[in-house]
């Protein structure tokens, strides 16, 4: 399962939240494919695996990468005010690990960007909305040589 590759080393609680959100959305996906098969004819069998992969990527982005990106931004702010690091309980955000985290966030978002994906693409409530975004993505391929 591709989702498990993304989350296998995360803490149990966070992993459970991600798996539960993923399973809920997969349930919705299969419901839509079964009940509204005409509407989703454009989705070929091999595309369903991609939808599942993008779904897991989106949940990982929202639940893991984005909050880390926010803490990097905050630490940058206090750095600009001459404060060398931020202590959050036992975790110390120093300029060294900040650099590492910044690069990680940039690399992740860079990969998404190269594939035409961004936060807005992954921000949805119902699977119908997500499938709409995916359809637009697929249609983009038609116009690109």
């Amino acid at each position, binding site marked *: 399962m*591709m989702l498990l*590759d*993304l989350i296998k*080393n*995360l*803490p149990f609680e*966070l992993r459970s939240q991600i798996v539960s*959100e993923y399973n809920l959305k997969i349930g919705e996906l299969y419901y839509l494919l079964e009940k509204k098969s005409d509407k989703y004819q454009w989705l070929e069998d091999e595309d369903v695996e*991609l939808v599942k*992969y*993008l779904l897991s*990527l989106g949940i990982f982005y*929202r*639940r*893991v*990468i*984005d*909050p*880390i*990106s*926010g*803490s990097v*931004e*905050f630490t940058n*702010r*206090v750095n600009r*005010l001459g*404060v*060398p*690091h*931020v*202590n*959050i*309980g036992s*975790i110390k955000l120093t300029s060294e*690990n900040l650099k*590492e*985290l910044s*690069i*990680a966030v940039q*690399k*992740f978002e860079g*990969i998404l960007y*190269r*594939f*035409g*994906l*961004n*936060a*807005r693409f*992954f*921000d*949805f*409530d*119902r699977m119908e909305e997500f499938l709409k975004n995916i359809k637009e*993505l*697929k249609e*983009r*391929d038609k116009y*690109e040589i």
Partner: protein
Amino acid sequence: MKYKSPFKDKNLLIWEINNFLEKYGSTLIQHASKISTYFEISCYNYIIKYYENSGFTIQVKNLDEKTRSFKYKLGPLGYPHNFSYFIVSKTYRYRKNPKTFQYEIRPNIPVQSKHDSNIFITPDIVICDNNIVSKRDWRYYRGMRKFYFIPNESLISFAEAKHYNPSPEMIINFIGIVNELMPSLLKKKNKSNRPAHIAPSLIVSGKGGYHTNLIKRSIQNRYSVNIFLGVFSYPAQIYSKYGRSKVITI
């Protein structure tokens, strides 16, 4: 720019993500246990940005004496004087007499209820006057330590951060906190004073659907509160200079 296609280049996408995880996975895992705190810190940053974009100057206060680091307060326990916070200030020139307004923005500090002086609630982010009081009462912490809080009259505004998908119950529960701390905001639409402050705000990472957006609009029409949904993809809705007319102020 010509984008790669996740449909045509699916294996390349998976390969790139796997490479990413191999290289940065251990870095991310070190921080994963603090994810919900990191979201809270992001929201703390958005509120500071809001004030900065409203013409306030910002200062960081109470850094750790030895290391000069910013110590973020994670919960209601802990003495406030051991943790860092921001001060925002703005000067108005009333004819020739300038007057400076100054406020503190503190994470996780207990605030006294408006209805009952023995009840305290700890919002994630508190905007307040410089007035923290303490009491030693055997009923709190078994009398082992002093209990520090912001008296209700010194509360200016507050915010709650939720790293979830919004639900109707989550939004309505927030109104319960507003009722306990600033009930006057639920009686009539307040006009903002000078300087204007961001109204009590619920900041939610998830976008929500038709029903939660309906609840958001209904509540914002009735009360002086902000419900920010979908902050994951649109954080600027809180602090943007261009969208500020949409932010409710008090």
